């Protein structure tokens, strides 16, 4: 006879950037069912309706202060495709650089500020690594916590050189960028990058040079690297790896096993006349869908995107493409786990169903041979995925951190590629039409759809990485990616379910932008809610 099911409501989960509520059913100490609810609604898409076509450049970075540069990138490319602009190569490079430094910033910030804190949880007091974990990673006072959190502010100094400040600049505009960096800006940016590498990436995170790390191409290479020198095993990466294995973080958090990436970093010579159609063939980091069970890769296309609202607090027909959403928020948002329980919608792929977004997805897609021959290719994480038997909390976090070195190299390349005497902006002609802009925020696939009619925004739709990941059940009943990943999670202490936190935080989900991303209601209805 099996044990009774115990239901645990966790509100809030915390340290997931926004307010996430999770319900789990536990049987024999293991999660057997799960529901994730996003509990905040701000209605950004409603706010954007009827506004200036460029309002998205101001509003959408404020959808999420954590990946504002990624939102800005999408907003600018969406208008570029709608207005059929020409974008100078300097501007493409400057946009990419802004996005990259935001992503690099996020690595130590998430690692120390949000993720490693849980390794100091008393539940792990019997681990041989515990004492060292507390010394390094305790919040605010841990030795590496303080260094990591403080140095995370440096890469975005480069953002400030381009856009004046981070977060919340709007320096990317259709037709280019507002800035025109000088030789001193470029040199200064270079030295900031070097500082970040010499003071954190190499000595603290890797325990080796970037060059040595870049030689790792397979799971076996990685294990050999770990044993090669004590500096490797004792680096924050080495200790993360060893302690994760010791406390079993390689054993749960699997998920659906299907992954999506929009691809990102448009190439400066290939996307000067951007269209929705030519994007896949123009980005350095290729797009794709990876199916882990079948081990297949293919390209991703925005036309496959669908949104199901059957379990979300919206009243509209299911399975719509974002361009077709009529969106209507339900006023009474009672939680009913059998019916509607979240402000997030269920994003699906027309053919492949629920997909996971995020750094793990990007790395699994980077291991495919499905793109252009010149596009980025990296087999490491895909190899680990296969050898370790699929995804886990540990591999998902590793994949996130793995990208840092590659982004660093791309930032270096951009600084060499700028042609300071060439133009940064080409004034576009405003026109009506539909546009689409996509990228990969550090947390995963992000895109904006815009429709401009009679010189103002008719419809603006956002699908954030967390919308993919934290979505509720879809109309066919399949769980959202995090809901699915929670299945099988062992819970040692139901009064402190740190394991649920591990799974949610491995997705680095970011509720602040999900929750308003899929709102909507008719203008008339809203008038009734308006405050005086």
């Amino acid at each position, binding site marked *: 006879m099996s044990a009774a099911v115990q239901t645990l*409501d*966790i*509100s*809030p989960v*915390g*340290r997931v*950037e*926004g*307010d996430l509520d999770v319900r789990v059913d536990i049987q024999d100490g293991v999660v057997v069912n799960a529901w994730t609810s996003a*509990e*905040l*609604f*701000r209605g*950004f898409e409603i*706010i954007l309706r009827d506004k*200036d*076509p460029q*309002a998205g450049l*101001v*509003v959408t970075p*404020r959808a*999420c*202060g*954590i990946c504002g540069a990624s939102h800005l990138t999408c907003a600018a490319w969406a208008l570029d495709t709608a207005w059929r602009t020409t974008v100078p190569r300097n*501007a493409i490079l400057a946009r990419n650089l802004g996005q990259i430094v935001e992503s690099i910033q996020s690595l130590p910030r998430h690692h120390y500020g*949000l993720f490693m804190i849980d390794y100091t949880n008393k539940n792990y007091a019997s681990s041989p690594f515990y004492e060292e974990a507390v010394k390094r990673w305790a*919040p*605010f*006072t841990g030795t590496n916590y303080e260094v990591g*959190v*403080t140095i995370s*502010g440096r890469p*975005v*100094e480069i953002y*400030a050189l381009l*856009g*004046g400040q*981070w*977060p*919340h*600049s709007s320096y990317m*505009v259709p*037709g*280019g960028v*507002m*800035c*025109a960096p*000088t030789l001193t800006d470029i040199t200064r940016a270079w030295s900031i990058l070097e500082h970040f590498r010499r003071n954190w990436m190499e000595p603290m995170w890797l325990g080796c040079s970037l060059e040595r790390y870049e030689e790792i191409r397979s799971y076996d290479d990685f294990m050999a690297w770990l044993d090669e020198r004590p500096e490797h095993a004792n680096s924050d990466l080495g200790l993360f790896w060893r302690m994760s294995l010791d406390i079993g973080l390689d054993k749960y958090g699997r998920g659906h096993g299907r992954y999506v990436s929009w691809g990102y970093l448009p190439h400066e010579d290939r996307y000067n006349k951007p269209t929705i159609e030519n994007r896949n063939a123009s980005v350095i980091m290729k797009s794709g869908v990876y199916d882990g069970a079948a081990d297949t890769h293919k390209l991703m296309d925005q036309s496959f995107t669908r949104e199901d609202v059957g379990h979300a607090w919206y009243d509209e027909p299911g399975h719509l493409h974002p361009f077709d959403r009529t969106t209507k928020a339900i006023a009474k948002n009672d939680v009913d786990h059998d019916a509607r329980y979240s402000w997030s919608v269920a994003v699906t792929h027309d053919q492949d169903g629920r997909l996971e977004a995020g750094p793990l997805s990007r790395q699994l897609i980077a291991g495919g041979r499905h793109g252009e021959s010149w596009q980025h290719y990296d087999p490491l994480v895909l190899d680990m995925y296969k050898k370790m038997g699929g995804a886990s909390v540990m591999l998902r976090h590793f994949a996130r951190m793995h990208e840092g070195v590659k982004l660093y190299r791309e930032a270096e390349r951009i600084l060499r590629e700028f042609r300071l005497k060439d133009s*940064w902006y080409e*004034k576009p002609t405003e026109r009506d039409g539909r546009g689409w802009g996509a990228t990969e925020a550090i947390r995963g696939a992000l895109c904006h759809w815009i429709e401009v009619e009679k*010189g*103002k925004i008719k419809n603006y739709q956002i699908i954030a990485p967390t919308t993919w990941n934290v979505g509720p059940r879809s109309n066919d009943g399949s769980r959202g990616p995090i809901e699915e990943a929670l299945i099988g999670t062992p819970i040692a202490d139901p009064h*402190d379910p*740190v394991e649920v936190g591990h799974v949610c935080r491995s997705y680095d989900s970011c509720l*602040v932008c999900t929750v308003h991303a899929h709102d909507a*209601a008719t203008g008339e209805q809203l*008038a009734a*809610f*308006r*405050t005086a």
Partner: protein
Amino acid sequence: MANLLWLQGGACSGNTMSFLNAEEPSACDLVTDFGINVLWHPSLGMELGENLQRMLRALTSGEMPLDIFVFEGTVVNAPNGTGQWNRFAGRPMKDWVADLCKVANFVVAIGDCATYGGIPAVAPNPSESVGLQFLKRAQGGALGASYRSKAGLPVINVPGCPAHPDWITQIVVAVATGRAGDLTLDEFQRPKTFFTSFTQTGCTRNMHFAYKVSATEFGQRKGCLFYDLGCRGPMTHSPCNRILWNRQSSKTRAGMPCMGCTEPEFPFFDLNPGTVFKTQTVMGVPKDMPTGVDKTGYIKLTAAAKAASPAWAESDIFVV
């Protein structure tokens, strides 16, 4: 040891991200150098679920003292004044805010959302968002115009979208170390030490402003952003060009027009068509004048300045 609790309502986390960039003092310095005890923070706090709920109840009941309550994001009232569209730890966030503000010694609103409503409160304000003690220019907000914290102060407003990290940490430290008496607030409850001078103070494009030389398009290394591109630097109270952002720059130095984000009206003109990054003019004269300047004076000054403008003003001054 001052107990600090930081919560987020209708927020984007931008002020938290900004806070983590702080330098003098840094976020970690608050704890290690100034003895501030960060009880919980949505992105940094240790506790989850019932453990946090227990702490929140200990604070609201007075069992645990709350010295500083920091709030980021709007207070969401939708739908229909219930606040159910933003629930936190099992109840509407607006109810937590009301209870916590009753017991807090000091309440600090960080960023435009918490101060004046900010972006979420742009018409039609779907979430019925308000700031803690204002909605745009109107006093009141979630707590009412007469609200005073236990130390006798109204909400201390640190606006900006986001607020600059050093504005945040300096105010928190000032309050925690017994310097609240040195705080003077302006009519919008902003600390005067930051919000008396203008964004324009210290802008590297000031000479171009004086000679009425305009940056006519983006991506130019010369010119003032006021005449064509909608810069609000001359009428915005902020130290953005005195206390630089991320140690390096400011929007106007980098070529982006100031959007006036430290003023209650941000975003100006509610982002209506034709108003974004374009100076609003009437017969060639800007609709919004630099603070303290009248139209006739402005027109006379323009003619004189243009005539006096040196040749270099039209070339790339921030040369490659």
